[in-house]
């Protein structure tokens, strides 16, 4: 799409795009290029020289049991976060949509968690489930359940999933509610006149009509779980116990900054780059169909 009317000039537009261009080149393309370049080398222990290893870093990573385990962890984590946050959000949106009055009040309250940073959400949930002072831990203990996410990998995973999903409920709720409200009342009422009960109406009319929103949210939430949950993991488990909650983004950070294994960290960055690339393309292909320019 192009404008019919344009302004003349070459230097002015170049000057206008310059700030964006400089920032993008310096902080996006150069580092990304560096990541690709470094992924082909292994620095010596003193950081004085680099040894060319070709795809050696990648071969090493893909053959490394910890890295493969991190892939599986990331997949499980993302799927659970997406399902939990979308499930709760859909439940709340369906209920709010049933109200004639008052859904605005609920909406205002439900927006809150969006404003809470993932790292802060992590601290809040950590506090509730803290092994020594946590209130929920204490009540679980009274019920005879010994909660300890510091030692138990499954409990650790459960905790980071719930803390990550919690902050995401607002976002999903808003999109689901908008999607539900866009469904024409007349269609639903016609079904009701034909005697369709709530659950039948939901299954045969609402859910299919909601599917574009659902698919969009599915992609966006997976991206969120992959890349924006670092704060939750770092505050609650630091990837432990025994790497059971080390998702890919956390591993890049740990190997690069804590382990100082630059070649491996760079290779991991490149693999993540490919994953973001694929997700972005999926997102755009879909969105191009959804939005009419």
């Amino acid at each position, binding site marked *: *799409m192009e*404008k019919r*009317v344009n*302004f003349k000039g*070459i230097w*002015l*537009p*170049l000057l*206008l*795009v310059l700030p*964006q261009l400089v*920032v*993008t080149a310096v*902080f*996006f*393309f*150069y*580092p*990304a290029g*560096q*990541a690709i370049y470094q992924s082909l080398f292994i620095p010596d222990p003193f950081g004085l020289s680099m040894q060319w290893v070709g795809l050696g870093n990648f071969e090493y990573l893909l053959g490394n049991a910890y890295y493969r385990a991190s892939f599986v962890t990331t997949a499980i984590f993302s799927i659970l976060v997406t399902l939990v946050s979308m499930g709760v959000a859909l439940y*709340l949106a369906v209920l*709010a949509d*049933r*109200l*004639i009055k008052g859904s605005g009040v*609920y909406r205002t309250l439900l*927006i*809150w968690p*969006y404003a809470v*940073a*993932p*790292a*802060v959400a992590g601290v*809040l*949930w950590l*506090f*509730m489930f803290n092994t*020594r*002072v946590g*209130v929920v*831990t204490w*009540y679980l203990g009274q019920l005879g359940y010994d909660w300890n996410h510091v030692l138990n990998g499954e409990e650790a995973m459960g905790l980071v999933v719930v803390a990550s999903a*919690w902050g995401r409920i607002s976002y999903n709720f*808003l999109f689901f509610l908008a999607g539900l409200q866009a469904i024409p*009342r007349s269609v639903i*009422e016609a079904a*009701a006149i034909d005697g369709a009960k709530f659950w039948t109406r939901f299954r045969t009319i609402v859910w299919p009509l909601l599917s574009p929103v659902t698919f969009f949210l599915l992609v*966006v939430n997976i991206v969120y779980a992959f890349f924006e949950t*670092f*704060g939750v993991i*770092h505050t609650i488990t630091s990837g432990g116990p025994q790497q059971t909650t080390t998702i890919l983004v956390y591993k890049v*950070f740990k190997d*690069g900054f804590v382990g100082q294994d*630059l070649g491996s960290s760079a290779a991991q*960055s490149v693999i*993540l*780059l490919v994953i*973001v690339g694929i997700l*972005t393309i999926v997102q755009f292909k879909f969105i191009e169909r959804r939005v009419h320019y």
Partner: protein
Amino acid sequence: MAGMVERRGVGRWMTHLGLIVGLLFIFFPIWLAFVASTVTQPEIVKPPMPLLPGDQFFENYRRALISGVNAPVGWMMLNSLVMAMGIAVGKIVISLLSAFAIVYFKFPGRRLFFWLIFMTLMLPVEVRIVPTYEVAANFGMLNSYSGLIFPLIASATATFLFRQFFMTVPDELTEAARVDGAGPMRFFWDILLPMSRTNVAALFVILFIYGWNQYLWPLLITTDPSMNTIVMGIKQMFPSGDDTADWPVIMATSILAMIPPVIVVISMQKLFIRGLVDSEK
């Protein structure tokens, strides 16, 4: 007229009940943090802690704001404010300018430039942390506001959003401006910018929260506690080893960390929802 599918009587109450149960689940962590920020340390470390607020509100918040654990939380909030404002304003300004150039001029490299911006969507900072950190370190940007702000300032989303909006601005306005002898910058300043007001405001809400809630980047860039932002500073308040954390101060800080973004979201709810929907297009 009320539709016939909305529930009345018992059904309506069940709907409210379902929503309230959901709200309790969502607010419980926040409520508990608030309670913890108003009681004494002994009340917390001897579980179960109380579920209703105590009388230490002023004492705990005063302690957090003025002394904190590693650095006064008041300072950290100021750092967060500078970072969030810098990122929001910076992203909006450079995106407005480049979108204006892309839409209203035909210049060599326009298409290439457009794709270069598009590709930044695929490069979140989490993916390129080590090399980006090296760049910032080489520029001497560690422990500085510019280091917190500039590496996060390029925004494909904002550029696309403004491009989208500029496309809908009628060409007649541009023609009229040209007939009146107005140059491109005059047109941008007097006509385009005032028309973009709502878009700018909606985007600002989203970007402010994005900036305020950053975690990984400030964690790498700031080693000096006085440059910490509040969101990343909370984790630094936990002692290493077996010492007991200063829970009342930590929880007061958590509450303080969420207040500014919550105020922004709630008070500009309509703009926020609009920004959210727009920026996903």
